[in-house]
């Protein structure tokens, strides 16, 4: 198959549907056979199905690189401008995210081989359904289909979150997760209903066509509802409260998927809907929109970083760092334009792999040392040298050290910000990277090197997790250590592998061009676009900032670890850990509080949109 020839027709009509249908069918087979087959066979079938999904999505990515694949379900082609059926619009961004989902699912299933408690084998079919839901969410071009896959993804996630039913904490976490995300889904549906009423269409391209230059209060409120719904999934302040609870109680392979891809898909949905529907609708007001989203992104990044440093339970710490980095990614989306979109995509890819590696290492710690709480882990990890290296590399990735994809993402985003005269964005990246990397390094210093004294035990760290693997197996097998290695290698490859930057720039260029999208959906042809490759991108200042962030992070972690040996004035880290109690008490674990903040959020965003963007 040469690079310019499209797929043969009978394959073109079959392949795009396979990444959804195959995992679902395999899940039904596994659901029937789960009590009759031994555990290794079920694990193998699960891994095989997600690998097959990865292969098919890679094929779609290869095809989408040259021309966007538009697939009409039920053979319902549009009639004039009216779209009757459901479509998949597979451009490089969608296919790339689907590949990322398949990769992380395969690695998570590999990590859980044989030993992670699988709830009498319900775990594997639920993971496959989760994968199908995420893949459909990425690939679809129809609004209501987006909602259906959002719900499919969420239902599988609720069930997986509550898998460990022996303790009451997972059930509380799953309850909070389920209630907040269901409210978010129905906010999205209300927004879709409003858009349907004025356009009479459910297809994204058709709505984009019909809503051009319309920004009356109805469209603005629908935009606000849809944005808030997806920002809840993306864990942006003030919709973020469910994430820490859900991560603290889910099994490790599930946390990998949550932080690695599920949360980022909320941001992807915002980007896709804004470029196709809302930005062309708001044309003259896009600068105000940029300001609003920048504010929310910055607040999230700083808040997430601060809360991350104040945490002592490893998984909650990593969850808050996800919140912080999602705030950074929202600022990249806010800037609009292909360069910022490229920064968003690069950062997403690198962060997903880096965070997955950190969660997998946390899983190894839970497996070997039987605890996930920083005070209990003190000085326990001295023999785990290789794991310590991975943890350190993960921390550097969070800080944006040069050589990691996060640094490249930051470079692209900062360049886009400079072009829009917003010079303070790189400082936000620096602060967020420093705080999150410092937290991870602090845990690393205490656990693997045994430096300093035992940390203060706090409420959150006292609610420890029961180990999720069976007793009596104290070695780290190859299937525990290979997934995090692959993830870290991937995070580095995003920055260093030649050609990745050009592909991402081209993909972002195709994504940001709404007229080209409409043309492709209605005619099936992909227009050639002017290339972005001749842009002058200096990554050197971003590299410099990455090194500064890593050094500051190390210094901050050291002031916390050695707090008793340094003069009181310099104990910055210790000051950050303790007195954040007021901020931390907002995260109360009570579902009514979480929904209250969501109401505050939707009311604020709704009012801001309706007032400022009219």
């Amino acid at each position: 198959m040469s690079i310019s020839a499209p797929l043969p027709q009978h394959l073109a009509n079959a392949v795009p549907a396979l990444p959804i249908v195959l995992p679902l069918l395999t899940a039904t087979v596994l659901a029937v056979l789960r009590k009759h087959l031994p555990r290794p066979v079920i694990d193998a079938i699960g891994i095989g199905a997600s690998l097959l999904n990865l292969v098919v999505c890679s094929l779609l990515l290869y095809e989408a690189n040259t021309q966007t694949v538009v697939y009409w379900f039920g053979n319902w082609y549009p009639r004039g401008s009216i779209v009757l059926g459901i479509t998949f619009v597979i451009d490089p961004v969608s296919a790339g995210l689907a590949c990322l989902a398949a990769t992380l699912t395969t690695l998570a299933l590999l990590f859980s081989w044989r030993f992670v408690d699988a709830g009498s084998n319900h775990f594997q079919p639920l993971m496959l359904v989760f994968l199908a839901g995420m893949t459909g969410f990425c690939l679809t071009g129809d609004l209501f289909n987006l909602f259906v896959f959002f719900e499919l993804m969420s239902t599988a996630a609720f069930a997986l979150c509550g898998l460990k039913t022996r303790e009451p904490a997972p059930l509380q976490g799953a309850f909070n997760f389920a209630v907040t995300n269901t409210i978010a889904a129905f906010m999205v549906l209300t927004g879709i209903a409003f858009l349907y009423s004025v356009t009479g269409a459910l297809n994204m391209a058709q709505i984009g066509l019909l809503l051009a230059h319309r920004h009356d209060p109805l469209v603005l409120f629908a935009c606000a509802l849809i944005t808030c719904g997806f920002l809840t999934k993306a864990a942006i302040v003030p919709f973020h409260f469910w994430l820490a609870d859900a991560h603290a109680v889910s099994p490790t392979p599930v946390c990998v998927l949550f932080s690695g891809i599920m949360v980022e898909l909320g941001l992807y949905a915002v980007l896709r809907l804004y470029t196709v529907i809302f930005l062309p609708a708001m044309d003259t007001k896009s600068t105000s929109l940029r300001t609003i989203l920048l504010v929310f992104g910055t607040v999230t990044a700083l808040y997430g970083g601060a809360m991350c440093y104040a945490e002592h339970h490893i998984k909650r710490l990593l969850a808050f760092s996800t919140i912080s980095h999602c705030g950074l990614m929202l600022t990249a989306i806010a800037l609009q334009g292909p360069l910022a979109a490229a920064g968003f995509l690069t950062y997403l890819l690198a962060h997903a792999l880096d965070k997955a590696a950190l969660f997998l290492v946390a899983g190894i710690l839970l497996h070997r040392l039987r605890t996930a709480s920083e005070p209990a882990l003190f000085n326990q990890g001295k023999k785990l040298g290789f794991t310590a290296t991975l943890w350190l590399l993960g921390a550097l990735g969070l800080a944006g050290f040069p050589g990691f994809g996060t640094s490249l993402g930051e470079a692209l985003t900062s360049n886009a910000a400079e072009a829009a005269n917003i010079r303070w964005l790189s400082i936000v990246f620096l602060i967020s990277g420093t705080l999150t990397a410092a937290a991870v390094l602090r845990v690393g210093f205490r656990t693997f090197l045994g430096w300093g004294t035992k940390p203060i035990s706090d409420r959150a760290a006292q609610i420890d997790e029961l180990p999720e693997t069976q007793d009596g197996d104290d070695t780290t097998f190859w299937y525990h250590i290979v997934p995090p290695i692959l993830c870290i290698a991937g995070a580095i490859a995003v920055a260093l592998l030649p050609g990745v930057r050009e592909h991402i720039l081209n993909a972002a260029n195709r994504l940001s061009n709404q007229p080209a999208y409409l043309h492709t959906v209605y005619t099936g042809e992909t227009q050639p676009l002017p290339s972005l490759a001749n842009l002058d991108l200096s990554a050197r200042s971003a590299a410099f900032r990455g090194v500064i962030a890593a050094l500051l992070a190390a210094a901050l972690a050291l002031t916390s670890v050695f707090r008793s040996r340094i003069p009181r004035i310099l104990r910055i880290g210790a000051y950050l850990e303790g007195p954040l109690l007021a901020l931390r008490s907002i995260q109360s674990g009570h579902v009514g509080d979480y929904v209250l903040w969501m109401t505050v959020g939707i009311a604020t965003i709704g009012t801001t949109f309706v007032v400022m963007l009219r």
Partner: protein
Amino acid sequence: MSERVRLGIFFIFGPLFLGLYCYAAMGLPQWGHYRGPYGDVISRVAVFERHATDAVNAINYDYRGFDTLGEEFILFTAVLGIMLLLRREEGAADTKADARKQGEKSNEVEDNPALSTTIQAVSLPAVFVTVIFGFYIGLHGQLTPGGGFQAGVILATAPILIYLAQNTKAFKRITSHPVIEVIEAIGAASYGLIGIAPLLLGVPLLTNVLPRGVTGDVFSAGTIALISACVGIEVTAAFLLVAYTYLQEIISGEIAED
């Protein structure tokens, strides 16, 4: 956060949200004057193209059949999740809730009066009518309002009627049979397989490739009728599984008491 603070903050932002909702709703087309093209186009062409007189089910299983595939699998996943959450664990620790339940249960069964003979006599014909009605609704999905989901729920209420008529043993025998799980999975998988069959013929997923038949016949509208029947099977099995999973602890207690 105390109750008062929560209420205070809510009564500022909640009415603000409600006000925005109403303000946005003023921009909607006037109630009763639906004008969008999508519904009208389908109303005009569904009968001719698909020989299905029920436009809603034609949309559900044909025009937007892919959404319904996702929806069916949401049901499947939720049932899997419920069985996961309420699974019996070996050696689970007794909590004080369990102990309290044990104490209550022994009192409950004694206090429960026996059901009157009228109810016991009427329940069997009622079950019979429910089952027939359920099959009728399921088979006529393409002709009249109804279809797979509705039929599945109606059929699933029949064993529940049996349980309410205090025939717990029969209820347990029907719903705890391991074949129910298999039937549910087969129902869900068959929707996927009906979708995949067109792929082998070279057309996209879920294309209606079966013969359309004569409008108004039970065997018409191609795959719409077939998908509707499969969905009916799956939904019935799913709801039976859910009913059994929720009631299993109570049922074991009641049967042990007999």
